[in-house]
């Protein structure tokens, strides 16, 4: 069963009573398509200025918008993945405002009837920063609408001018509106992260924040329980996942302090300054905007069909069938995680980490296929050893010098008890160098094979026992922890080539006699 999360109240202190925090999000995701929403110019990040601009994008008179089918399909896919109702009839409108990067003086958007409404998104959070306990929350999706992106302005303050590049003007966007069901930066970041994964899985957007393919604006308000809802501020210019939680938490804190000092919150738009770590009012957005919405006269309503309403004699290319798209949706992240947990017996937290890192889940599955080691044990090597190394060296899974084949090879040696786990870690460290050696070669080079000769091992154990009477007495007196010291000494003598489990057994046997 689903429950929309109740906003946590901030803790109450002697000085300040509890406050209820509301955080809503407006997320703009650039649609992954070859050409723009209403014109045939190319969509590409980083190209010579104004080279990907058609006459329509430049708003020259006599040009008309022509809707790109792929953009509609992307929006339908996304709506379905977010459990929305898809509006079989949606409308386009003009939103008017003046800015140099909006040559037409208006943006074509969907204000009256958007393409999808009333959905939901489930996301998970770790409690207390430990991966051990995760809680699932839900945020309602108010709507998804198709709209045009604007061009880019480069501000040249020295010459007091703005340089305008229209390459981005007219690129298709999906605006996803999330209701204010979230109560802090962490929840917002988790929700956005899950949306990002969904969009990437669907392929409807590549959703890379660094390239401006995913932009988030947050709406924040605070009020005392029992009092009317607080005034809302909008926070813009959040450029990365890292800053998202920070910006929202700063704004929440700012509003709380303002109210505690008897001040008022203005209904304004604020920008996040990442250098200073705070939000500041935005100059150009003073006062309420009046966008003078009007229907886009050049575009009739967008009609979508399903299996039942499919028209008999219409050109296929002109028909979008919602059911056809629904049947072809790929497994969403939440489904993939569940399958990983069920198939491999790993913990839910593990499945989150696997999906969070591009290519990691595939790497894990590939290793499991190539080794006899149980997946539950393999996961430790993937999440602790492999992932931490990749993070340390800022590498993606694809760039890993250790392939799944090599890792599986190593784990097989461990599983067959030819090396100890300490030795395995040593071999792994050597494999990172990417010198092309196999695990077996490294084991032989560094003489890491486990001692197979039981007799020799027994002799070493005996020698250690004989040489450490105090410790032996302590163990016999009822302090079993001291045994670990003896095990360590045997390990040292064998240069790590002894199986600690076996050593413990031998020592215990000898000491109990």
């Amino acid at each position: 069963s689903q429950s929309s999360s109740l906003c946590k109240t901030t803790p109450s202190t002697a000085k300040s009573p509890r406050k209820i925090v509301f955080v809503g999000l407006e997320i703009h995701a650039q649609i992954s398509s070859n050409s723009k929403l209403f014109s045939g110019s190319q969509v590409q990040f980083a190209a010579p200025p104004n080279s990907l601009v058609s006459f329509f994008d430049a708003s020259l008179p006599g040009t008309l918008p022509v809707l790109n089918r792929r953009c509609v399909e992307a929006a339908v896919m996304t709506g379905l993945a977010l459990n929305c109702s898809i509006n079989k009839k949606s409308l386009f409108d003009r939103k008017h405002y003046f800015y140099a990067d909006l040559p037409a003086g208006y943006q074509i958007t969907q204000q009256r009837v958007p393409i999808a409404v009333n959905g939901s998104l489930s996301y998970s959070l770790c409690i207390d920063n430990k991966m051990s306990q995760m809680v699932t929350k839900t945020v309602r999706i108010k709507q998804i609408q198709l709209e045009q992106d604007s061009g880019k302005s480069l501000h040249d303050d020295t010459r007091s001018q703005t340089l305008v590049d229209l390459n981005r003007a007219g690129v298709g966007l999906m605006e996803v509106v999330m209701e204010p069901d979230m109560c802090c930066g962490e929840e917002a970041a988790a929700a956005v992260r899950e949306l990002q994964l969904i969009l990437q899985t669907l392929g409807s957007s590549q959703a890379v924040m660094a390239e401006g393919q995913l932009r988030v604006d947050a709406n924040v308000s605070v009020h005392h329980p029992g009092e009317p809802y607080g005034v809302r501020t909008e926070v813009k210019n959040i450029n990365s996942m890292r800053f998202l939680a920070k910006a929202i938490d700063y704004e929440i804190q700012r509003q709380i302090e303002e109210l505690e000092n008897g001040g008022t919150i203005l209904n304004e738009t604020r920008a996040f300054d990442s250098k200073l770590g705070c939000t500041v009012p935005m100059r150009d957005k003073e006062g309420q905007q009046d966008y003078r919405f009007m229907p886009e006269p050049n575009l009739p309503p967008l009609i979508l069909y399903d299996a039942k309403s499919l028209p008999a004699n219409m050109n296929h290319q002109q028909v979008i069938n919602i059911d056809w798209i629904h049947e072809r949706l790929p497994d969403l992240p939440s489904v993939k995680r569940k399958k990983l947990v069920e198939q491999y017996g790993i913990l839910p937290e593990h499945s989150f980490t696997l999906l969070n890192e591009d290519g990691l889940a595939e790497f894990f599955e590939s290793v499991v296929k190539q080794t006899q080691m149980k997946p539950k044990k393999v996961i430790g090597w993937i999440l602790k050893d492999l992932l931490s190394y990749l993070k340390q060296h800022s590498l993606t899974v694809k760039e890993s010098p250790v392939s799944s084949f090599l890792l599986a090879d190593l784990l097989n040696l461990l599983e067959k008890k030819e090396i100890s786990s300490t030795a395995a870690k040593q071999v792994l460290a050597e494999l990172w160098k990417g010198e092309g050696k196999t695990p077996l070669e490294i084991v032989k080079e560094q003489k890491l094979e486990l001692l197979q000769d039981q007799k020799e091992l027994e002799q070493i154990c005996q020698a250690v026992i004989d040489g450490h009477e105090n410790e032996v007495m302590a163990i016999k007196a009822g302090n079993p922890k001291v045994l670990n010291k003896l095990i360590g000494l045997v390990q040292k003598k064998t240069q790590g080539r002894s199986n600690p489990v076996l050593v413990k057994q031998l020592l215990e046997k000898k000491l109990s006699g």
Partner: protein
Amino acid sequence: MRALLLGPWLRAARGLPRAPGSGHRHRGHGGHRPQGPLRKVSVEVLDHLEHLALVDFRDAEGVERLQKAIQFADQLHEVNTNGVEPMDSVLEDRCLYLREDDVTEGNCTKELLENAREKVEEYFVAPPGNIPLPKLEERETFLQGSQ
């Protein structure tokens, strides 16, 4: 395409007072209806309109022209639209054409920049941000002295 018969609806007009003696005016094909009273537009509304649309009403004649335009448009209120879906455009029951996702345009930087008054290395040049219109009190427009 809907056929809109104004006649019967206009006769069942919702009460817009007809100014006595305003008589008939002929304005091309639209002028058979009696006009309503000339409505005054407040200075605040005029100022707001100037900000939104970046127009300058400039003088009393400009403002009066605006007020007459509003009065003319007010005739729309005489039509009873109870239970009628608003129409967006006469093309609203046409099929919305869907284009294939192919790159067919662009790469005409030179042509586009030919129209630009100023350019810097293939960028259009614009003044910084939105130049805010000075507040009403500071402007030397007609509106300042108007009622």
